């Protein structure tokens, strides 16, 4: 265990050292990279790209007008808040806002619907809160310039990206590599802890609904253990809370990157002397992004159970599918982290111009 963590730490330190020196500059005008490669979901719907961008620009203009109006007429606040909410919903469809990390994490760790939505909520609120905190601290306490704020945002993004890298490496190790390495014998690879054919023949067969039958003596085989065997989540786990040690990493990775759009909105609200309205608008934007990210989490959980309604978990095909889904999701998180960190390095070296 310690060896493994040490290796992760070394790898992360190498990456961080090489990227920090080069990647400390934000682009001009505070261009901090969004936390999704390419166009995120929109890459699958290229026809929507033009209208999406047009709609974003239109919304941005409306937000500007909305904030300006609120400064003169407080009754415009409800309009501004509804607009901000819609902007959040729309904005989150574009690249960023932790969609990929939350969805992949939910898939890889078999989260329930409730936990998936809860994670989506926490990460969106964390992003909005982070933007508000930075805007206030940077201007009121630190008197940073816009360029200073942008540079600080980039540094926070790099930290967040390294956190995603650690999370991704951890997930890939637990969900993809270790199972392969631990169970070279094919029968063992598909062994459910306690199922016939598994190494531990003493344990009775378990099924999704009879998890209490698992022998409590086998304390190394609690769900979430890293032994590499596929575990049926016991009823208690399925209904229970989130695995906080891993989940906090998801929150750090998504919450630590304030939305550049929110920073700009807050700066403008401050200039119009309606900071509170700006904060409220940012909070509503956060709720809007929560809605979009939650819908994605719901779709992820639903498609996973849908897949298992078609292919029963207890068949070999079912177990293959389970392994493949989790390993695939773990790989997505890892590939994502590589894209992000690599993007920072390349951008700092002048690519993309």
């Amino acid at each position, binding site marked *: 265990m310690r060896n493994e963590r040490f290796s992760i730490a070394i790898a992360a330190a190498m990456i961080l050292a090489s990227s920090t020196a080069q990647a400390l500059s934000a682009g*001009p005008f505070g261009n901090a990279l969004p936390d999704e*490669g390419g166009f995120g979901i929109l890459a699958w719907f290229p026809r929507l790209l033009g209208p999406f961008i047009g709609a974003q620009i239109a919304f*941005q203009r409306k937000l500007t007008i909305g904030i300006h109006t609120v400064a003169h007429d407080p009754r415009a606040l409800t309009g501004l808040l509804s607009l901000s909410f819609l902007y959040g919903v729309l904005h989150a469809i574009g690249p960023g806002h932790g969609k990929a990390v939350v969805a992949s994490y939910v898939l890889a760790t078999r989260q329930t619907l409730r936990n998936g939505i809860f994670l989506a909520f926490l990460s969106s609120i964390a992003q909005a809160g982070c933007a508000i905190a930075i805007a206030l601290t940077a201007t009121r306490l630190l008197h940073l310039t816009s*360029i200073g*704020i942008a540079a600080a945002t980039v540094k926070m993004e790099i930290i967040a990206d390294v956190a995603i890298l650690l999370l991704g490496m951890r997930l890939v190790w637990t969900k993809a590599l270790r199972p392969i390495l631990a169970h070279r014998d094919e029968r063992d690879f598909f062994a459910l802890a306690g199922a016939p054919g598994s190494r531990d023949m003493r344990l009775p067969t378990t099924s999704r609904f009879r998890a209490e039958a698992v022998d409590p003596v086998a304390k190394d085989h609690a769900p979430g253990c890293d032994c590499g065997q596929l575990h049926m989540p016991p009823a208690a786990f399925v209904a229970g809370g989130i695995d906080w040690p891993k989940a906090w990493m998801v929150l750090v990775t998504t919450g630590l990157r304030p939305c550049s759009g929110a920073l700009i909105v807050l700066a403008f609200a401050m200039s119009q002397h309606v900071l509170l309205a700006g904060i409220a608008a940012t909070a509503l934007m956060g709720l809007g992004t929560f809605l979009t990210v939650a819908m994605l989490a719901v779709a992820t959980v639903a498609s996973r159970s849908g897949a298992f309604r078609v292919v029963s978990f207890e068949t070999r095909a079912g177990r293959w599918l389970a392994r493949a889904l989790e390993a695939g999701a773990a790989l997505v998180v890892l590939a994502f982290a*590589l894209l992000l960190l690599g993007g920072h390095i390349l951008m700092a070296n002048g690519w993309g111009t």
Partner: protein
Amino acid sequence: MRSLFMPFACVVTCLLVATRPAFAHPHVLVTAAAELVLAPGDTVTAIRETWTFDEMYTAFAITGFGASPQDPGAEGLQEVAKQNIDDLAEVDYFTKLQAGKQKAEFEKPVQYSAKLLKTKEDVERLQLEFLLPLKKPLDPTKGAVLRVYDPSYFTAFSFAPTDSVRFSGATRCSVAHSKPQALAAIDQMALTESFYTNMLPGTDFGVKMAESVRIACAQ
């Protein structure tokens, strides 16, 4: 099993090289204007560019440059201009001027300034003006194209449809604006097949959304 982890970590590190930068939707909207400075003989020696930023970004841009966050003062504005010009050097000032195969290369501007314009709603817009000298004069007489764009599309540049690109003196050259095919198609609701294929994200998405200004000269 454990001994395999370090090689795995190294492979992961190596994979970092094979990645691409990401793109953003625009957060900054700029209205651009350009004056092409001509030497006798109608070669372009410099471009005087004027960029006017949107109100919301303006408030963010001037944050912290003066005594109070929202009031930079004259010195603060000069500092805003200087830091932006410094940052723009890495991205070639977002400007591309090309005549046939010859691409213009730029030197760092020494003349630049920033000011705040008041709109009619009494909101301020930042205007950055700079003179961008070319390393070698460019001859546009056989046709040239000027584009001002951000390849990552974090900033969206647009030219006013008339009178935004001029020449510094009397000349036999003229300009014609063309909107990016993608945005023009949305305007005209002409959603043809080529519109869709043109919208595929690629490394130069920014250029797909860029307006081009064609320069043509009477012979």
